[in-house]
């Protein structure tokens, strides 16, 4: 293995230092990690998943099954990256994985000795005893042995971004078909996004020798595309998934030349591309060959050997056996020979075409027909292969085996939306099925593997795609490759900024000027398939003695042909069972190189045709996607957008401990009130009961309801009547769901004959709003009602406590807030500094209280005005914890009681309905079970053991009853009542037991506590409401 002195698309002037397993290595700009390792003679790159066999570099792309490494350290540690897709960058730290203590000596290599017992699914058949929990014991060791790389436990320090993109035509893949499609669509005037996963565009053309005519063609295309401002080329961008609505999920990796992103730059960007039309020009992937020890380092795909040679100037071996069942590998053979390697071709076919044989002969390449590799020799590196030939076995020494088992069209994206691929017999590959409107395919993904054809198809698809978008200017088709003049000089100078974002390959003439008509048709025959099936069957019969070693169908998952045979023998013969039983195709490569052979093996075993066996479902992502990229910027404090009330900053500045609820930040308690929440809420309750407290209630949902039918509308959505509510008065109302269960509660005030102001709970505000709109749009469109959320419009605060009237009067001396002008449940609409001011006298705490609404921009001003005016009256702020406990004393239900299961009667609110009918939830609210005697009913619970705490979540039992099952109910809310100096709670208790005065036991088994309590009225405080009315 060596780097050639000239040639390739690397920039020898830019050296890049990196480390692999601590060893400092140098590569060049334009290298991948894999090419740089190969160039430096690193052949052993990792250990396999199950048997810990030595593994090298197998491919040159995202299909890589073997060369998985861990990149980075600390929070940047990233396991299982395919070295073939890692763009070499300065300071890159790579580490081999799944080995201990070292890559060269791996203790778990011993697993190979136990291989006879570690067949597919062996774990389903054992580890079941001696005890029921025995599995947990075995599992511990199995888990440690499994897994690939080790992940970091520190947070990821890097930034990810999300971008929303729109295009007329998206083109996936920048090979000959994709470039032609982009040119046709772009030329027609469509907005085109051309997507390339590699850091260099060009697709398969990048693997041609630098002096090939295709290189000139490529630079010609770049030049033409660069002149089109409506065409964007995105390199380093993987289309990982196709989703409904022609949405493509893309991940763009930002190459900054260094291993880690620069300050402020995103490491990756998730691009959500909404395209009117999509052209899939995603190409094809070469398939391996299956033979004993086909996993040895030094064995790689023929196309990969060619990529390393021509693109990266790395000659991966000097004595090469090219094994193939089709024509395409001859290209690799010819190029390797031209680079000076001694090449032998083992062609499994009986009669390759004469022209190929002739060309091989001219290059001094020995072609052996009807020749297949039976076994590879060597352990950490291949050193020879045994060929199975009609005349008997032959051994050929070699240091590189380049294999080609045909090509599989990259159909993944085309089948993400459930379109099953169909089998194309002549090319032995699955190709995309019938796609929906606006979706097109071109190039190798269609199973056609000629370049001329790809260019033509690409052009046609691009034109059709733009026509689909209603853009139909025709554009001249690019000339076919065969006709192109070579002009390797004119390439990158004319490229626009949009193309320049990709590092351009350096086109250098190769030392060997010769070029040839390369085989483009891969002309496969089925002999390989039949041969493989026969071998598998033979293996099935001979068992462990099969061949000379393991023949891997799935290199990454260590699934052998024997495993497939075993799955078949045991009846796991559907492709999905095969996959699930053997784990075939479940690796990070998603079986890109393994699936087809496994399918054809199973087809052979079942004596069925490949399409009858079918294929497994292709799932996104096409290649693994970092979770961080999917989350983008929605992490940390941007995880969710937070809502702040107009007085937020005041609360924070004045020592409030804030608590999130429904994305609102609300004062939980104020630190001035106590050291912790328990101390603080009691102090804040006392404050409200004894003086006055000020509470920010801006988070309540607020809905403006207007129109001549507004009263009628409210009569229907609330269980209680609003039509007769006088202007200037407020009323508490309850809404049900259609199934008769309580939905939400709140207060609605009448501002005018046709105008109401509704409040909802904080939690249900959005649901209530949407439901009201639903009823108006779908059920009662004849009602003249307009509903609009005004939650954000108003700052709202509640001043509550015996001193509240004095405080309000002091704050707004011009207002008449006498009992006559503003009675309980009365409303005043006034002006404050030319803005609307709304004061409603109502109480949640049970104290004399006012709710004050003012335009949000004046919220803090009015709040401060009240605080100032209230200071002499002892006014202090209180938080939601105190609010939630104050209302318990008063027996007001809230979230813990309105839990989506309780009815009006359950909550003791049935009387609100009276004799009304025609409200939402009425009919189903009369379902039989809603009057069961075991149905819960709201009760008050008063602790009878001094100092012993009642707990929300405690389960209620009759005294002496065994404490098991679900009890008679539970405590929903509980608090210490400073007013009564006992613990009190609200509970839901079976109606038959909800007898006031009865004693009940509240059990809290988690702490082992049981507390006795008495069933009382839920209204602990001021049952006659004297505090409210004065």
């Amino acid at each position: 293995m060596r780097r050639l002195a000239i040639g390739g698309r690397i920039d020898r002037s830019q050296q890049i230092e990196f480390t692999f397993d601590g060893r400092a290595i140098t590569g060049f700009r334009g290298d991948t990690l894999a090419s740089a390792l190969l160039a430096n003679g690193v052949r052993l790159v990792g250990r396999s998943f199950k048997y810990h066999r030595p593994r090298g570099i197998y491919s040159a792309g995202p299909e890589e099954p073997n060369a998985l490494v861990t990149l980075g350290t600390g929070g940047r540690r990233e396991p299982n990256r395919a070295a073939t897709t890692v763009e070499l960058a300065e300071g890159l730290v790579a580490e081999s994985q799944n080995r201990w203590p070292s890559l060269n000596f791996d203790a778990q290599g011993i697993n190979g000795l136990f291989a006879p017992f570690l067949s597919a699914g062996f774990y389903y058949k054992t580890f079941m005893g001696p005890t029921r929990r025995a599995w947990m014991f075995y599992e511990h060791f199995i888990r440690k042995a499994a897994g690939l790389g080790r992940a970091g436990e520190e947070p990821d320090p890097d930034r990810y971004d999300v971008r929303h993109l729109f295009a007329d035509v998206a083109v996936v893949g920048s090979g000959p078909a994709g470039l032609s499609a982009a040119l046709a669509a772009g030329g027609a005037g469509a907005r085109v996004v051309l997507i390339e996963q590699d850091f260099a565009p060009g697709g398969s053309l990048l693997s041609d020798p630098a002096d090939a005519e295709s290189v000139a063609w490529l630079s010609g295309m770049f030049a033409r595309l660069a002149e089109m401002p409506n065409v964007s080329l995105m390199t380093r961008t993987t289309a990982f998934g196709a989703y409904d609505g022609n949405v493509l999920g893309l991940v763009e990796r930002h190459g900054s030349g260094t291993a880690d992103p620069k300050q402020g730059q995103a490491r990756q960007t998730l691009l959500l591309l909404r395209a009117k039309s999509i052209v899939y020009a995603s190409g094809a992937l070469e398939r391996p060959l299956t033979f004993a020890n086909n996993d040895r380092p030094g064995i790689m795909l023929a196309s990969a050997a060619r990529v390393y040679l021509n693109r990266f100037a790395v000659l991966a071996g000097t004595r090469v056996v090219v094994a193939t069942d089709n024509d395409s590998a001859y290209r690799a053979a010819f190029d390797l020979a031209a680079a000076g390697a001694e090449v032998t071709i083992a062609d499994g076919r009986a009669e390759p075409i004469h022209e190929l044989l002739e060309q091989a002969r001219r290059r001094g390449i020995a072609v052996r027909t009807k020749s297949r590799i039976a076994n590879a020799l060597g352990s950490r590196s291949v050193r020879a292969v045994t060929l199975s030939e009609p005349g008997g076995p032959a051994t050929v020494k070699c240091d590189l085996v380049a294999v080609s088992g045909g090509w599989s069209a990259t159909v993944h994206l085309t089948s993400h939306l459930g379109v099953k691929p169909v089998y194309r017999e002549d090319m032995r590959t699955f190709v995309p099925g019938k796609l929906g409107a606006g979706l097109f395919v071109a190039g190798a993904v269609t199973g056609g593997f000629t370049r001329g054809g790809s260019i033509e198809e690409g052009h046609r698809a691009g034109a059709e795609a733009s026509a689909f978008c209603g853009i139909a200017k025709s554009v001249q088709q690019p000339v076919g490759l065969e006709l192109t003049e070579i002009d390797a000089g004119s390439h990158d100078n004319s490229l626009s900024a949009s193309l320049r974002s990709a590092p351009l390959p350096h086109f250098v003439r190769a030392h060997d000027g010769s070029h040839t008509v390369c085989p483009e048709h891969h002309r496969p025959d089925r002999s390989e398939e039949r041969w493989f099936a026969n071998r598998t069957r033979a293996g099935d019969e001979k068992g462990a003695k099969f061949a000379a070693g393991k023949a891997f169908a799935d290199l990454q998952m260590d699934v052998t042909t024997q495993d497939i045979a075993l799955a078949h023998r045991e009846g796991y013969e559907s492709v999905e069972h095969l996959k699930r039983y053997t784990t075939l195709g479940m690796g990070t490569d998603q079986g890109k190189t393994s699936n087809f052979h496994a399918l054809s093996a199973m087809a052979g075993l079942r004596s069925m045709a490949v399409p009858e066996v079918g294929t497994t479902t292709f799932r996104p992502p096409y290649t693994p996607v970092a979770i961080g990229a999917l989350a983008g910027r929605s992490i940390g404090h941007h995880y969710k957008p937070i809502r702040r009330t107009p007085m937020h900053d005041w609360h924070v500045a004045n020592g409030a401990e804030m608590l999130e609820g429904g994305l609102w930040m609300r004062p939980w308690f104020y630190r001035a009130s106590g050291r912790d929440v328990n101390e603080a809420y009691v102090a804040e309750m006392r404050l409200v009961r004894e003086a006055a407290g000020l509470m920010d209630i801006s988070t309540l949902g607020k809905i403006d309801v207007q129109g001549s039918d507004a009263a009628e509308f409210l009569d229907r959505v609330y269980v209680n009547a609003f039509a007769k509510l006088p202007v200037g008065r407020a009323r508490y109302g309850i809404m049900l769901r259609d199934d008769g269960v309580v939905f939400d509660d709140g207060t609605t005030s009448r501002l005018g004959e046709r105008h109401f102001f509704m409040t909802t709970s904080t939690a249900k505000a959005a649901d209530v709003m949407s439901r009201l709109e639903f009823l108006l749009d779908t059920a009662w469109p004849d009602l003249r009602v307009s509903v609009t959320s005004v939650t954000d419009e108003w700052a709202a605060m509640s001043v509550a406590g015996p001193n509240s009237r004095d405080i309000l009067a002091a704050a707004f001396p011009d207002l008449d807030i006498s009992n006559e002008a503003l009675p309980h449940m009365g409303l005043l609409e006034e002006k404050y500094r030319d803005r609307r001011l709304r004061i409603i006298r109502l109480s949640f705490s049970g104290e004399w209280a006012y709710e004050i609404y003012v335009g949000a921009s004046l919220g803090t001003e009015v709040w401060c005005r009240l605080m100032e005016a209230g200071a002499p009256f002892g006014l202090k702020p209180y938080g939601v914890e105190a609010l939630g406990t104050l209302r318990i004393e008063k027996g007001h239900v809230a979230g813990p009681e309105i839990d989506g299961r309780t009815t009006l009667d359950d909550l003791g609110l049935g009387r609100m309905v009276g004799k009304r009918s025609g409200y939402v939830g009425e009919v189903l609210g009369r379902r039989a079970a809603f009057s069961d005697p075991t149905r819960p009913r709201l009760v008050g619970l008063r602790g009878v053991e001094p100092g012993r705490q009642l707990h929300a979540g405690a389960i209620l039992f009759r005294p002496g009853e065994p404490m098991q099952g679900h009890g008679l109910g539970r405590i929903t809310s509980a608090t210490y009542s400073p007013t009564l100096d006992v613990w009190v709670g609200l509970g839901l208790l079976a109606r038959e037991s909800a007898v006031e005065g009865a004693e009940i036991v509240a059990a809290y088994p988690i702490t082992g506590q049981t507390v006795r309590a008495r069933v009382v009225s839920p209204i602990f405080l001021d049952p006659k409401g004297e505090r409210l009315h004065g």
Partner: protein
Amino acid sequence: MRGYSAFSILRNGLTGQRHWRRVWRAPDPKSAYDVVIVGGGGHGLATAFYLAENHGVRNVAVLEKGYIGGGNVGRNTTIVRSNYRLDGNTQFYEFSMKLWEGLSRSLNFNVMFSQRGFLLTANSPGEFDTFGYRANVMRLNGIDAELLDREEVRRMVPYLNFSEKALFPVHGAILQGRAGTARHDAVAWGYARAADAHGIDIIQGCEVTDFVRHGDRIVGVETTRGRIAAAKVGLAVAGHTSVLARKAGLELPIESHILQAFVTEPIKPLVHHVVAYGADHFYVSQSDKGGLVFGGGLDGYNSYAQRGNLGVVREVAEASIAMMPCISRLRILRHWGGVMDMTPDASPIICPTPVDGLYLNGGWCYGGFKATPASGWCFAHTLAKGEAHPLTAAYRLDRFRTGRTIDEAGAGPFAWLQ
């Protein structure tokens, strides 16, 4: 059935795995059975097994239109727990848990039931209160449950987000130690093998296209492999319940919705429990192979497509990092969707139906996997005796009419919000 054991592994290892035989036969359907179970998923296969095992009913066929275990039993996040609070659910799921605990041994098939603990974080004081209620109910029903405070959670799962600035800080958690995961495919295969050993016919590639009636009674099914007569027909087809039931003239309160699941690349052990996020839709465990398996909420609209939308993928990714910041750099290998048969209260329906001869096992929502053993046990009872098993007495179809719904989430009759 040849027994599986360490010895059989050893013997086969030394003899080239030649002695293993088919795990279940591939019989042609007979013309008539005592019971035909439609649906070769976990529930259908478990039902078949318990019909033979508990009730001696062996003349049974399980008809599967594709391959067995191809539906939700093979595409879930493998979580097994019994941490329910409402009467009806609590006992049923705990019974299922007990069956899980002995399942590998009763089936002689290692379903890899791993009781590694299910930990659900509480991310607000209010949520912690409701966990107290749930934990108390569990204890009172003989189910293990613990409440952990913030520090106890930190000791167990130090990689969660314990930042003081976290938007949804960890207040504590509820832990069920006996909960865990099982190897989902193995459950289908294990039941299939055990049922097959009792002589039950498991027929794959056999789609039921219609029902055969005699008067008002269902007396068989039409299939792509011909007519099959049956004294009783049991439906266990999850997401496809509505479509088949309608062919039998049965209207149901069921909607089909997509729930997505995700798996990352395999890594060395990192997540040792099942961990779920109380503040949003996210739950994760690590498979024995090493991949993190996780899921989120429903996609939110009726669907029969076994794939999800990218919006939910993003939401799940966001929630995962909010709960577990170190997950950011891990990569998703695959994501897929299962079709959930959602009911208006998110609880299942197992009962005889108003259509004579037709029995229903469906409406499992997203909770079907953990219920598999108990569902099979109770549905077998229902089919054998013609009446509900006491443990599934509450899972009646008419509960929506009577109001005896079992709505753990309190989300109301909106299947997509459950």
